[in-house]
Every structure is written in structure tokens, then in C-alpha cells.
């Protein structure tokens, strides 16, 4: 790969890793609070659909983003109600949310727009479009680093920049604030939090609310950032990959950034490698190239990261009285 190609792949990787990163951080907040979340996919779908639908109705990307966050947070609250208040099984709740969000989006979409669950394309004001950072054009002329700035750093939409800021904000929130301290504690030993006089319930709900909000942004990014409108099941399994990334990152925000970038990069490279003829092998079957990121993930997992230890109290409802 020459430098320009590399930059192109990197540029694509940034876009592809954005929804992963947002969903991964979403999962991080709830899992650090001790609620396992396999329902990221569903929450993203809810967000994407809400964004798509509201963008059409209002023509405002910002209102659509709020709607996306609202819809995802609603599902986050359902999840929290099931897992925290009702002490239900967290995995079942997540699976249920994936089904419900997918089904509901399609049913409502069909009933509102009559296009089989798809939302029509919103006007341009209803989308987050790419923004050129200052001096990008000039920088492009100034050698490889400038190109990097112009091609990779500049030219994304606002949500991308938010996503790449988010791990650092999350890190700060988790490690430097009272809320973060308590949230981390409640995922490790809720009884300790409880005896310290802090409400376990409220913390776990907060985790789910933040999770919902981030999934909402991820969904909005898919529906009105990258694409123009919601399409049935457009998350295409990204919620599950985000979960994998979360484990890969060992539930830490900054590593999550690197892991998601890695996944995005593998994905982008796979796109780019299609049809490329390798010496002595010939053209590699497309299917192999497409499986490559997954194969590499398995290899990395087997070889490098070793055991990932999840938050201790994860997956277990907190019961004070047996």
C-alpha cells in the first residue's frame, strides 16, 4: 500500500469505526455498572430509526439526534427496569430488546411511510454532513502529514469527532469524577456501594441511560450521518462487533478507541483488498477477504490479549435480601 492508499483506508476506517466506538462505549458504561448488554444492536436500531423518521418529519438533524437519543434511552430504561428493578436475566433482556427494536422499527416505519420499514431520505438539513476543518485544503499540499490532516482528520461529520472525543471524556468521567467512581464500584461490588449509602439502582439506571444515549448517537450516525434514512436492520451486526470490541478493550475507554479503530481498519482494508491479485495465489476469493477481519480478530484474541476479566458483578442482579 502506498501512502495515499493507506490514508484512504484510514479515512474509511475512521468512518467505519465510529458507530462501533459509540456502541462500544455505550456497552462500557452499562457493563462497568454491572449490567451486561447484548442489546446494543437493538438500541442502535431504535436510535437509527428514530433519527431517520424524525429527520424526515422535521428536517432538522439536531432534533433527529435528540429523538434518536430519546428512543435509545427508552430502550435503555426498559432494559434497566427488567434487569435492575425486576432483577431479570440481563442477556434475555438484551436479546428481547434486539428483537423488539428491529420489529417495532419495521412495523412503525411501514405504517408511517409505507416503504417496508425504510424511512424516506431526509432533506440535507436533516443530516449531519461532512465538515472541512480549517486549512485542510492547504494542508493537503504540504507533504504526507498534511495529507493525513486533510484526508483522514478533516472531512468527517460532527458525530465522528464526537465519537473520537468520547473515549477521553469517558475516561475522564470514569476516573476523575464521583459519578465515575461510583459507577465503576457498582459493577465490581454493588454491596460496597450500597453500604456506602449510595443507590445501586440509580447508578445502574444511569449506566443504561448513558448507554442508551451513546447508542442513540451511533444510530443517528448510521441513519443521518453516513446514510440518508433508516433501512431495515441497517446496523448489520455492528452491535455484536462492538461487544467483541468491548471485551477486547477489557472494558476500558481509551483502549476501546484503539480496538474499534483496529476493527474499522480491518474492515476498510478488506473492502480495499477485494479483487486484488496476490502473487502466486491469484485473486483471493472475495469471501475470504471479507472473513479476514474476523479471522484476524480470532488470531489476535488467541495470541495477544489473553484473559479479559469482566467487571465482577456483571450479569448478576443485585439482591440485598436473598
Amino acid at each position, binding site marked *: 500500500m502506498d501512502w495515499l492508499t493507506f490514508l484512504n483506508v484510514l479515512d474509511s476506517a475512521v468512518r467505519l469505526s465510529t458507530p462501533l466506538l459509540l456502541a462500544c462505549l455505550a456497552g462500557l458504561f452499562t457493563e462497568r455498572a454491572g449490567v451486561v448488554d447484548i442489546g446494543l444492536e437493538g438500541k442502535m436500531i431504535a436510535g437509527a430509526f428514530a433519527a431517520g423518521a424524525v429527520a424526515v418529519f422535521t428536517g432538522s438533524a439536531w432534533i433527529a439526534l435528540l429523538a434518536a437519543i430519546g428512543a435509545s434511552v427508552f430502550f435503555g430504561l426498559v432494559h434497566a427496569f427488567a*434487569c435492575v428493578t425486576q*432483577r431479570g436475566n440481563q442477556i*434475555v433482556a438484551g436479546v*428481547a430488546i434486539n*428483537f423488539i427494536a428491529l420489529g417495532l422499527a419495521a412495523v412503525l416505519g411501514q405504517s408511517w411511510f409505507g416503504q*417496508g420499514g425504510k424511512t424516506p431520505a431526509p432533506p440535507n438539513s436533516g443530516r449531519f454532513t461532512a465538515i472541512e476543518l480549517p486549512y485542510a485544503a492547504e494542508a493537503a499540499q504540504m507533504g504526507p502529514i498534511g495529507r493525513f490532516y486533510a484526508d483522514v482528520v478533516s472531512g468527517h461529520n460532527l458525530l465522528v469527532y464526537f465519537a473520537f472525543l468520547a473515549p477521553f471524556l469517558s475516561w475522564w468521567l470514569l476516573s476523575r469524577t464521583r459519578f465515575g467512581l461510583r459507577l465503576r464500584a457498582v459493577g465490581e461490588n454493588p454491596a460496597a456501594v450500597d453500604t456506602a449509602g449510595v443507590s445501586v439502582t440509580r447508578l445502574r439506571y444511569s449506566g443504561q441511560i448513558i448507554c442508551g444515549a451513546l447508542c442513540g448517537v451511533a444510530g443517528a450516525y448510521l441513519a443521518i450521518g453516513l446514510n440518508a434514512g433508516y433501512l431495515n436492520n441497517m446496523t448489520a451486526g455492528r452491535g455484536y462487533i462492538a461487544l467483541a470490541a468491548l471485551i477486547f478493550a477489557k472494558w476500558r475507554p481509551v483502549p476501546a478507541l484503539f480496538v474499534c479503530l483496529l476493527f474499522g481498519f480491518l474492515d476498510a482494508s478488506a473492502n480495499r483488498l477485494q479483487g486484488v491479485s496476490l502473487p502466486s495465489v491469484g485473486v483471493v476469493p472475495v469471501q475470504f477477504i471479507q472473513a479476514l477481519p*474476523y479471522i484476524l480478530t480470532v488470531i489476535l484474541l488467541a495470541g495477544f490479549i489473553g484473559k*479479559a476479566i469482566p467487571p465482577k458483578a456483571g450479569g448478576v442482579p443485585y439482591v440485598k435480601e*436473598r
Partner: protein
Amino acid sequence: MSQPAAKLPFWVDFGLIPLLNLVAAFAVAGLVVAVIGENPLDVARIIIYGAFGYGEGVGFTLFYATNFIFTGLAVAVAFHAGLFNIGGEGQAYIGGLGVALVALGLDPYLPWWLLAPLAVIGAALFGALWAYIPAVLQAKRGSHIVITTIMFNFIAASLMAYLLVDVLNPGAGSMSPGTRFFNAEAVPPRLSEILAPFGVDLGGSPANLSLIVALLAALGLWLLLWRTRLGYEIRALGHNASAAAYAGVPIARVIVIAMLISGALAGMMALNPVLGDQGRLLLEFPGGAGFVGIAVALMGRSHPLGVILAALLFGMLYQGGSELAFEKPSISRDMLILIQGLVILFSGALENLFRPAVARIFAPRAA
């Protein structure tokens, strides 16, 4: 799990409360139905009639249930070992390859009753194979099995797409990505044909002998888990890994064996659609059954009997749902996904929603 210790009568615990949960799920679904302008009661009637009201419907319900029994058992056995096998989908897919290779290779020579047992072995073997690598990685390297099995689902999809489009495809002129049809003599009879002489009419439903295999598998799994030493070790491992190590259970080996069984069960799901129904291997035939298996196992409390019941419930939803889509053009097939989700939510995650209220009514009498 975390019940107030008040004991409820058996029929309340296992009859009334699950029923209330289902009713609640349907009530919410009914709300959505009403919002889009249909009569919820009508819809419920159609679903139930569609699933159980006539022979062909019953046959289809059983057909779908067969898939879910296999995948549900697969997830359940892994759960018992403390493992979360999210890769049933991929294992089933690869299991289909096992079935197809047996059938394609031997169908000129063998009648169905000789071929079918080999196909069962093929399905189990290939499914197990696909679970083997994640299992070993978990056992030996501690790689998180949830991720590896997710990855293996994707890898299976790519591999099968390659095989079905480029390798096993009968070739020129064939549009559809799949193998050729198996010889008709190599395909086992359907239940409808077997039961017809007894006056049972299952219509044109594809339910087939795989159902029997599934039920036998459930029985076998029950025996394995609660009546054998291996099952004892699997459960010990699942409940308390360090106690298992203390008891001399070879942890790594039991992890791998449990996953092999899980993969084999998931792989056997392929028998039903591939050998029993389509008579050939088609692209993406598992159609999400591996994921439904997770819900089925959880709702069935990972007990084989529970898995069978939960599988029937989902079979009913699938068949009743298609009846619904047929009868009510205004309700798209996505409604079914929504209803499934609500059933999982209310009977699974919110299973205790009504328990306190019910307990208040029934506990005094029980005490």
C-alpha cells in the same frame, strides 16, 4: 433465581405465571396492532389458529420447533458448562455442510434410512468441528468464547457463501446459490406422509423425522447432564470452576467436550431444513435459528423439557405469524419479530413482574 422464599403451588409457578407473562406480551403487541389499526383479538385468534388450528399449521409449528429444539439444546448444554455459545448460527450452517456432503456423496447409492443416520453424524460432526476452535481457544488460551463464536458465525457465512456460490453449485445456469437437489430416494419421508395412514393430516407441512431426532437429543441431553459422570462434571464446572478443579475435573477437556456437544446439537439443526425439507443445501438456511436458540434455552431454563416447550412456543409464533401475514396484508411479517421480542421480554427478563401480586393471592393458601 432470586425469589422471595414464599413457595407457590406448582400450577401457579409453572402454569399461571407463565401464562400471565404471555398475556402481557400479547397485550403490548396488541397495543401496537391497535395503533396500526387492526383488531388485536382477531390477530391473536389468527396466530393461534394458524399454529394449532389445522393439520398443516401444526406441522409447520412442529417443523420450526424442531429447529429451535436443536439450537436451544445447544445453547443450554454450553450454559450448563458455564459457557455462552453464541455461535449456534454458524455451527448450524456448517452442520448443513456435513449433511450436504453426506447426501451429495452417497445419495446415488443409499436409501434414505441408511443415509439419514450418516447425515446425522455428518451434521453433528461438522457442527462440533465449528465449535472446536473457539472451545480450544477458550480452554487453552482463555480467549473469550462469546467473541470467538460471534466471529465464527461471520467466518461460517463467508465460507459457506464461497462453497455454495463457487464450489458446490451445480454450475452454469443455476441462479440460486446452493447445491443440487438430493436424490428423492435419499430424502426421508415427512411426518405428513408417515402419519397419513393413521388419519393424521399434516397437509403439506415439512415437519419430518428430524423432530424425532430432536426429541431423542433432548432426552439424551437430559440423561447426559443428570445421569452421567460427564454431565456431573459439566454442571460442576458451570456452577463453580474452582470446585470442579478441586474435584479433579479436567477443566480444559470438559470445556472442549461441552462445546463439542453444543456444536454437534447446533449442527444437527441442519437436518431439519436441509435433509428433511429442502432436499438440498441453500444459502443462509439457518435463518437466525441459532439466535432464537439463545432465547429458547434461557426461557427453557436450560432444561431439555423447558427447551422443548419454549421451542414449541417459538414454533407457534413463527407459524402463527406467517398465517397472520397471510391473512392480514396490512400487518407485515416484521410484526412477528416484534411479538417474539415481547414474548422474550415478558416471559424471560420480566418473568417476575406478576409474581409478587400472584404470591399475595396464593401464598397464604399454600402456607
